C-alpha cells in the first residue's frame, strides 16, 4: 500500500492551470467588457476547482475552505461588475 500515486490529482490541477492561461488570453483580448467578465468568471470557477484539487493533494482542508469563500466572493464580484456595466451604454469597442 503506497500513497505516492496521488500525483494524478496534480495532473488535473495542471490542466486547470492551462485552462486559466487560455482564458487569460480572452481577458486581455476583449473586445467588449462583457467578454472580459465572461473570461474572469471562467477563471474564478477554474481557481475553485484548483483549490479543491490542491486541498486533496496536500491533505489540507484550509484550501477547500478558501475555495468556498472564493466561490462566494467571486460570485458577488461578478454580480457587481455586471450591475456596473449594465448601467452605461457601450460607447466604443476596444480597451
Amino acid at each position, binding site marked *: 500500500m503506497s500513497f505516492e500515486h496521488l500525483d494524478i490529482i496534480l495532473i*488535473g490541477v495542471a*490542466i486547470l492551470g492551462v485552462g486559466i492561461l487560455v482564458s487569460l488570453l480572452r481577458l486581455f483580448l476583449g473586445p467588449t467588457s*462583457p467578454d472580459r467578465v465572461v*473570461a474572469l468568471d471562467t477563471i474564478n470557477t477554474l481557481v*475553485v476547482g484548483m483549490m479543491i484539487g490542491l486541498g486533496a493533494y496536500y491533505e489540507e*482542508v484550509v484550501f477547500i475552505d478558501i*475555495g468556498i469563500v472564493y466561490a462566494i466572493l467571486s460570485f458577488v464580484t461578478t*454580480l457587481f461588475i455586471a450591475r456596473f456595466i449594465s448601467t*452605461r451604454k457601450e460607447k466604443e469597442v476596444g480597451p
Partner: protein
Amino acid sequence: MTWDWAMITILVLIIISGIFSLLGAIGLHRFPDVYTRLHAATKTTTFGSIFLAIAVIVYSIFRITEVGPENDGAFITLAAHTFIALLAILITNPTGAHAIARAARKTGIAPEQAVIDEYEEVD
C-alpha cells in the same frame, strides 16, 4: 476496493474533468460573441468542477475506509467541505451567467449570426 482500482477511478474522473474544463477555455476563443462564449464557459467549467469534486470525495471515502474508524476525521472534513464547495459552484455559476448575459444585452450588444431576436426591454 483495492488501492489500484480507486486510483483508476480517480484518474478517469480527473481526465474527464480536465478535458471539459479545457474545452470551455478553448470555447472562449472559438465562439464569435459573448452569449455563445457564456454557453461554453458556464456549462463546461461547472461540469469539470463537479467531476473534480467527485474525484476528491471518492479519494476521501477510500482513505476513510482504508485507515479505519480510528482515523482523526480529517478526511470526513475534507469530503464534507468539498461537497459544500460543489454546492456553492452549482448555485452561483448559472446565476452569474444570467447577470453577465443581462448586462451584455442591456449595453446593446446584439447576438452575432442571430436568426431570431425576440428580446424587448422589460423591467
